[in-house]
């Protein structure tokens, strides 16, 4: 019998997984906002080209994904992470293209990725609900 997806079907959009990612982001931020009885005013993400997520598409999907949530109207800031590899042979670290992870210094292809595949919700900036200022008691 075929599995008909439930909630995730309604949360899917043709050929754009960034919307799924965006819904996940909104849910994560909402959970934090609920906990602190606040609304989200700013989100900071850290995204590398090798995460498979496109920052521009995330920005476009965000207003749709956040409509009616505690994140509606929040600023979405995305910091790019550079693609950086470390070479175990010549011990050098280099910033490289996403599809060329070879050590540019010595040509060794057995490098290890230092950064570039991140897809991280770094922080959430919250604002108290009107009249609810007392809930913001935890340290920044």
């Amino acid at each position, binding site marked *: *019998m*075929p*599995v*008909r*997806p439930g909630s*995730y*079907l309604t949360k*899917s*959009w*043709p*050929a754009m*997984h960034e919307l*799924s*990612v965006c819904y*996940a*982001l909104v*849910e*994560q*931020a909402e959970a*934090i906002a609920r906990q*602190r009885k*606040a609304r989200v*005013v700013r989100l*900071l*993400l850290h995204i*590398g080209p*090798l*995460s*498979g*997520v496109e920052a521009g598409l995330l920005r476009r999907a965000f207003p749709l994904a956040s409509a009616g949530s505690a994140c509606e109207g929040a600023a979405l800031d995305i910091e790019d*992470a550079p693609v950086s*590899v470390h070479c175990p042979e010549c011990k050098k670290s280099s910033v490289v293209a*996403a*599809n*060329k*992870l*070879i050590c540019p210094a010595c040509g060794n*292809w*057995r*490098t*290890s*990725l*230092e950064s*570039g*595949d*991140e*897809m*991280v*919700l*770094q*922080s*959430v*900036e*919250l*604002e*108290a609900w009107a009249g609810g*200022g007392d809930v*913001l008691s*935890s340290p*920044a």
Partner: protein
Amino acid sequence: MCDTCGCNVTPGNQHLVEPGGKFSHSASGRESVEVLQNLLSENDHQASHNRQHFARHQVLALNLMSSPGAGKTSLLEATIKALKGELNIAVIEGDLETENDARRIRECGVPAVQITTGSACHLDAHMVHDALHQLPLDDVDILFIENVGNLVCPASFDLGQHRNIALLSVPEGDDKPAKYPVMFRSADAVLISKTDLLQVLPEFSVARAEASLRGLASQVPCLSVHTRSSSGIQPWLDWLHSQLAELKDSRQRGDLSNFTSVPEHGHVLMHPHLQQVTPLDDEL
């Protein structure tokens, strides 16, 4: 997430929360909360739950990804035929529509569940979990998850699989790894499929395809296969046996740390507190 003891502040992000840093203050009633969670943490959580299912039932779970038409289902048909009587196989099929692939697999005599994603371009861990409950996992040695044909989106979603396999068929061209680095970097094995067509498609060079893969600093096996003769998938069958043996060995040692295929989320600044695994909450 641990946002009580401050342990999620690492040397890498400390500058953001130090005095004068981007998120240091709470001017005008605002506060900033460090999160440092993968954007797909909910999916990843479900994926680790799926992994517990696989562990409990001693199943090797393999996620097959490729372009549409690269030969995933044909490979599975040939694999099932070759391993009949030796290993028990089950398959989860992902497609936007139709039961066609699951039907093909069932005709080979093994259980198959079709996930029709509607318009979604990838499988996620929740969809796979629903399908797991429709399979007799106790009697299964290898579970193949045939992902939606797509070289982009499936690479970003951990399903709980032990290994990712990417197929690159000869008609597609030998520069696909350079064009789709995220997908091919996520693979634990790359199969050059339909190599029986090499004689009529001399523009495809297996050596160039492998060089394109190595350009992504990938050290994984690159195996040539075709399903036109029984010996055409032998390198793939050998690889499958090696993975089963390795998984068995890892389980005996009680250390499966090298048996989770989640390379895409490698640099998430994961902290133990951020990755707590909660107990299974449903019937296994």
